[in-house]
């Protein structure tokens, strides 16, 4: 006993020394690059060095951690200290969406975006209370392992494998897509090449050393990503508020943003009047698009849709030809027109969707600025009525008021449903739960959940601050300033990618109005170093951080899929006598196949990546949570219950997505209680619980052995009587 403790302590101290040294080395590396930049190193080269150096670093850790031991390969030898497992879980958890997308989502949707912040942190309470310690005590290799042992027979295990693959695969595609995007943005490589370059980085690591290599790489990646996230935000906070702790300081920035929103929405002020004039132009555009859509509908109804689309496409081609034939050809306009022709919708439905998007975009801009801190804003019907008809009767006002309240309550319901799905999904995603198999003890598993959430919390409570600080800069420094003196970051990003930053003087007054700026969510994190006036090396650092976030999550997910296939399907079901060498080679071969398949799918750039990520949470929540939790907390739960519960949860969740999400041909009119398809888990979850309960009650109680297994996982140690001290 004492030797094990001292071995663990020695290992912990050794790790701490390594990673302290590593962090110092990384900071030195960044400083060295900063000095080189001052001496004239080109930004593009800095981007290359950052990406190459970090990928080589991860590969190096992967090679050093290579292993041929089954326990090392699947669960890192179960000796990862709580603190380091927490860091690894943090990196495993925080994906490209958290790192790059989160602050932007908060910038764009204000309070309503906080559903992601709460959902993606609060889920760890469920992990801690219901799952981590018990899974650790169970102590096998995968989540389907638990389902198989607890509920007996191959069926629960098979459904578990299937569900694990569905949710992990949709999620991993989004990560590899993120890797491709970051690599191509910062190095200028083609997106597809970026995808495969990133893939190589993922593979060298997990291929040789499995969970052991992934764990130690993820710790390294967490350190990079948190440094990369914090530096620009702290700097921006100092500039905007004079306080280096952004999480405290942004309260005052939020107040002045809220005051500015009021000013911009009040036509009696100078700024407000200018905004109103731009909004009127957007309104005109919206009506124009809606008129075109109406005409399209009529043509389609008359059966001439295809001819109409061809005619429109010919129009776009003519426009391109005219531009090219102009006496002074404008290269930028020609490029835009060429893209227009090349990506012209193939049929009337696609054309309508494109126009509808344009109309909706214009409509959103024609309305007042949404208040950042206000939850569940209504439709503004009452305000609109009072403006258009100051002499409205009390009945009319009451009607408009009720309309607003209904819209607001609908948003609140969706917020709650989303938070619940994200939380329960967090507590059900196999790649996260798997990490708690790797700690030395139940005791450490419990502590490790705390460290996990602590390290995740550091980033998640900074993101809302960044959203507000960026908004402060846009509202105060950009709005009202002159087009003649655009800040450098605005013109840079406008040139790099118009979907991230676009700014057009619509009312030709030479001044910037808020309604003239279009910002894509990802811009916020990507451009913060430039907004804060930091050198390019920090932009490179942010790219390396985003890459670390995407790679670490992809590592964990790929390993989950490959392990489910090799351990649960091959070893447990096909060939239980397979030798260790054979098990590991099967596992590695599968890892390769899955990785290439995922990269291939990602390189096709499937649309609606964000929806896929959300869907993974709802699916995981519906399939796993009821069976896992009742498996520990309800001894009576049995084979039939688990099978029914998992199938019912999955079926209801998938059915709901199918009937409501337009990608599958569903329509919003099918929604139950107006719940959006991304939160389908809110229906799948109760279906899963009902399935487990009903299925268990209509069939015999589980065997004595299974009941003893439940006792086994409930108590950290049952080897001796409760009165004597454990040996």
């Amino acid at each position, binding site marked *: 006993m004492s030797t094990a403790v001292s071995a663990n302590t020695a290992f912990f101290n050794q790790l701490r020394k390594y990673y302290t040294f590593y962090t110092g080395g990384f900071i030195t590396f960044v400083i060295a690059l900063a000095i080189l930049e001052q001496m004239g190193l080109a930004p593009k080269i800095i981007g290359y060095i950052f990406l190459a150096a970090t990928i080589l670093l991860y590969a190096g850790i992967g090679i050093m951690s290579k292993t041929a031991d089954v326990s090392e390969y699947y669960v890192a030898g179960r000796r990862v200290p709580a603190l380091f497992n927490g860091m690894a879980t943090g990196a495993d958890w925080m994906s490209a969406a958290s790192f790059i997308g989160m602050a932007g989502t908060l910038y764009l949707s204000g*309070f309503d975006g906080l559903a992601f912040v709460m959902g993606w942190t609060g889920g760890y309470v469920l992990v801690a209370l219901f799952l981590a310690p018990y899974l650790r005590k169970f102590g096998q290799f995968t989540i389907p392992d638990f389902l198989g042992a607890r509920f007996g027979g191959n069926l629960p295990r098979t459904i578990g494998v299937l569900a694990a693959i569905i949710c992990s695969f949709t999620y991993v595609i989004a990560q590899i897509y993120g890797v491709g995007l970051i690599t191509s943005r910062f190095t200028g490589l083609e997106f597809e090449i970026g995808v495969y370059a990133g893939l190589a980085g993922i593979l060298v690591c997990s291929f040789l050393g499995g969970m052991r290599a992934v764990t130690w790489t993820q710790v390294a990646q967490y350190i990079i990503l948190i440094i990369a996230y914090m530096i620009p935000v702290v700097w921006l906070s100092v500039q905007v508020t004079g306080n280096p702790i952004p999480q405290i300081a942004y309260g005052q920035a939020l107040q002045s943003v809220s005051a500015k929103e009021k000013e911009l929405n009040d036509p009696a002020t100078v700024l407000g009047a200018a905004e109103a004039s731009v909004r009127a132009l957007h309104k005109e555009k919206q009506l124009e698009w809606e008129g075109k859509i109406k005409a399209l509908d009529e043509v389609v109804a008359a059966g001439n849709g295809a001819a109409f689309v061809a005619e429109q496409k010919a129009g776009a081609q003519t426009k391109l030809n005219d531009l090219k034939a102009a006496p002074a050809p404008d290269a930028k306009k020609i490029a835009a027109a060429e893209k227009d022709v090349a990506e012209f919708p193939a049929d009337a439905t696609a054309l309508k969707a494109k126009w509808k998007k344009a109309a909706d975009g214009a409509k959103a801009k024609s309305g007042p600025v949404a208040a950042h*801190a206000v939850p569940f804003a209504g439709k503004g019907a009452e305000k609109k009525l009072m403006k258009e008809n100051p002499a409205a009767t009390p009945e009319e006002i009451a009607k408009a008021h009720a309309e607003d309240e209904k819209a607001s309550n609908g948003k609140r319901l969706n917020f*709650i449903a989303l938070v619940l799905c994200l939380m329960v999904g967090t507590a059900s995603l196999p790649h996260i739960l798997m990490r708690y198999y790797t700690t030395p003890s139940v005791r450490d598993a419990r*502590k490790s959940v705390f460290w996990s959430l602590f390290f995740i919390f550091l980033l998640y409570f900074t993101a*809302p601050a960044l959203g507000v600080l960026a908004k402060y800069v846009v509202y105060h420094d950009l709005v009202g300033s002159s087009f003649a003196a655009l800040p450098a970051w605005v013109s840079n990003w406008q040139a790099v990618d118009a979907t991230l930053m676009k700014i057009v003087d619509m009312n030709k007054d030479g001044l910037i109005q808020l309604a003239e700026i279009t910002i894509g969510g990802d811009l916020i994190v990507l451009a913060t170093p430039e907004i804060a006036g930091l050198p390019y090396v920090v932009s490179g650092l942010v790219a390396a951080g985003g890459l670390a976030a995407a790679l670490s999550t992809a590592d964990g997910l790929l390993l989950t899929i490959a392990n489910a296939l090799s351990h649960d399907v091959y070893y447990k079901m096909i060939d239980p006598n397979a030798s260790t060498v054979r098990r590991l080679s099967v596992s590695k071969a599968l890892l390769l196949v899955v990785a290439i398949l995922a990269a291939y799918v990602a390189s096709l750039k499937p649309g609606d990546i964000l929806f896929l990520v959300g869907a993974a949470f709802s699916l995981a929540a519906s399939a796993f949570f009821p069976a896992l939790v009742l498996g520990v907390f309800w001894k009576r739960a049995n084979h039939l219950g688990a099978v029914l519960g998992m199938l019912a949860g999955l079926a209801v969740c998938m059915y709901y997505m199918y009937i409501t999400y337009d990608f599958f041909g569903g329509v919003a009119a099918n929604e139950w209680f107006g719940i959006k398809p991304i939160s389908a888990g809110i229906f799948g979850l109760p279906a899963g619980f009902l399935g487990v309960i009903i299925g268990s009650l209509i069939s015999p109680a589980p065997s004595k052995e299974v009941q003893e297994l439940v006792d086994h996982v409930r*108590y950290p140690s049952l080897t001796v009587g*409760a009165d004597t001290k*454990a040996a």
Partner: protein
Amino acid sequence: MQLTDKHREYWSRNLRLTAVLLGIWFVATFVVIWFARELNDFVIMGFPFAFYMGAQGSLIIYVIVIWYYARRMNQLDLEYGVHEGDD
């Protein structure tokens, strides 16, 4: 093996702790969201209260809940003699 009364007491104390902490989690999440519009009328440190909770306050509560659970359960393990030998 046969569970003793002491084992059962350990488990019921675990359940009670779990229920209380789950209740705190529920209030910090869903009750706050449900009354977000009303709570926003209070201002703390410059933040409207519901916004503060969603962006920071509830997160801090989650971290503390998990910390407390780990600490308390690890104590209970020792108290009831069900701790592991290893650590």
